[in-house]
């Protein structure tokens, strides 16, 4: 394959689609990474949270208020409340155990099943889709290819979330508590930080981000109960490649995987879905701290 014949294959649309896929992955992965970095909990149910965010948004848009943005905020907050409740009721009792990590992983896996079935119970097994909000419901033509303008909005919002989180963690008082607790929980506790409450707060924030990811991608994909199981594996790949606990790593990792999902099939016919998992294995073996930055970045 020579280079000139390859270049025209990559349209602007492919890049935009890749980045928008990456953006939704980033919103799940960053919450997952934040929760792991601070609490040491790998939340298997995070894909379920993402799916729940999409469903609540759909339900609000179709049933209550016909305003996508209000519905998205409602979806994100509802997921945050669910997440905080789960942390308080089922994860908090486990922190002091010897094998806390694995017990927490198993408990959150239990919630994968519970959320999946609860969603099926409430909304059924069918799939739903909605249109993007009217303001952005048009196509953009650029460089000979067209794509939905809403994708650009999602990319912009993901960048805004990254910037906002970064400012929040590095510049605010609460952010400094989070950083301090993440690097030494006992010392923070001795200095008067209410660690359990902080943990619930961080879990709430991480869940809100997953819910927001689900809400924002509701117009981009069809929402079905299988959605959670699909995205959680992608999110695991992203946080491993980016580094568990690293926010900028989650961003770069998510964009990498998003681009790979969008562009990959054009270049590698066989084995393309295996590549992310191979990358995950290699990163875990040779750079367990991830490719980008360490814990707490």
């Amino acid at each position: 394959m020579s280079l000139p014949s390859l270049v025209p294959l990559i349209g602007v649309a492919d890049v935009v689609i890749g980045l928008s896929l990456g953006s939704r992955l980033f919103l799940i992965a960053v919450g997952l990474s934040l929760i792991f970095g601070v609490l040491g909990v790998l939340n298997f149910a995070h894909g379920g949270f993402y799916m729940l965010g999409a469903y609540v948004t759909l339900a609000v848009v179709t049933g209550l208020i016909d305003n996508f943005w209000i519905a998205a905020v409602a979806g994100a907050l509802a997921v945050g409340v669910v997440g905080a409740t789960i942390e308080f009721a089922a994860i908090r009792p486990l922190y002091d155990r010897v094998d806390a990590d694995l017990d927490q992983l198993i408990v959150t896996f239990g919630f994968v099943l519970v959320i999946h079935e609860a969603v099926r119970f409430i909304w059924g097994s069918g799939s739903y889709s909605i249109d993007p909000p009217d303001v952005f419901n048009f196509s953009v033509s650029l460089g000979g290819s067209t794509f939905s303008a809403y994708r650009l909005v999602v990319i912009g919002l993901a960048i805004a979330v990254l910037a906002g989180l970064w400012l929040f963690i590095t510049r605010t008082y609460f952010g400094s508590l989070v950083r301090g607790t993440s690097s030494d929980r006992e010392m923070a506790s001795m200095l008067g930080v209410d660690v359990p409450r902080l943990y619930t707060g961080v879990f709430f924030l991480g869940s809100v981000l997953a819910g927001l990811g689900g809400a924002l991608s509701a117009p981009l994909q069809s929402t079905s109960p299988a959605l959670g199981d699909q995205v959680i594996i992608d999110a695991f790949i992203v946080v491993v490649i980016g580094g568990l606990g690293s926010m900028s790593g989650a961003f770069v990792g998510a964009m990498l995987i998003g681009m790979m999902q969008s562009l990959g099939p054009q270049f590698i016919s066989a084995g393309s879905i295996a590549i992310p998992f191979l990358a995950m294995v290699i990163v875990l073996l040779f750079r367990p701290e991830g490719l980008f930055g360490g814990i707490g970045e």
Partner: protein
Amino acid sequence: MSATTTAGGRVREFVSAAADGWTRERFGVLGALGLILLAFGPSFQVYLFTDFLVVALFALGFNLLYGYTGLLSFGHGLFYAGGAYGVAIVLRDLGPVFADIVGSGISPLLTFVVGGVVGLALVVGVAVPVGWLSVRLEEIYFALITLAFGMLGYSLIIQDPAGLTNGTDGIIVLLGSVDIGGSSFRIGARRTYYALSVVVVLAATYGAWRVVNSPFGTVCKAIRESPDRASALGIDVRHHRWMTFILSAAIVGIAGVLRAGLAGVASPGLTHWSTSAIAVIATVIGGATYFSGPIVGAFVFLYIRWAISRFPTLEAYWELFFGALLIAVVLYFKQGTVGGLLLLRDRLLGDDGDGGETDAGGDGEAPDGDGDSGGAGATVPDDETRTDRGDDS
């Protein structure tokens, strides 16, 4: 705990008397009788019990790693599928060859046996490098790398770059009929396959039990309790975990061979992480610190699922029940079902501890389930409300 009320004392007396003389041998005979009787039961029950045996072996193999060395794998579906695909490929590609060599009479059986051996060899061949790489990591990172290996296998089977696995459709497994001296029987017939599964599962379980109770198994338990302390005693923790990984994969591979014949197909779904999760669910519900835990857990898993399926309105939501059960067991009763049964036994028998094995939740096919839980039986009554670390004392 001594008898305080007369009624309670009488119950205890009665149970002690009933349990008196329940030796291991008697349990073995009773269990064997039960297994033989079951072969004449309704066809569906025979099928369901065979299903249970296969899942039990799957979970048992998984738990050698989790329960005995403390490594939680989310990728054992890879080995489950390895066994299934090994036997399926041999049956598909070599069946006619064997028929030419030994004649069509016994070739189906021979092909199945050879396929099983090939499947097992394939699994071990995969597990040696995968295990060697995986045991470098611990805890969450181990769970993640096994998940990645499992999904890597899933991707390769789905995309089928070598043209062996028939992509998303999987491979149909046709077991055929055996003709010996005029009499003929189908290997895949439910009762025949049940008998075959009983023999294989019992043999594999016995083998695993021997290993667990060998010096090697004792070292594994030491690693589970405290890797650092084991390492300080001069144990090569990583090497032991590697060896256990291979053994665990091999047992799961045998279960995979049986699964292929039972289901009639080797499908890519076997490699998916959600299949690996079945072993996790069964083991945790049964009680990971007991040898019989995964067996009892598989029993609970399959029979409760069957019971739920009797109610059409509930059938669609059986996962909800197991999700909730999983959460409750981890939070409140880490010993699982086997721990609960042992607790019940100690309550009923008073505190004598060394009574006969009454934890026959696995229908007597794991009579010596508490080979590693002798200590647990004694400590359980003390911390019945909220224990947080299984039975390690």
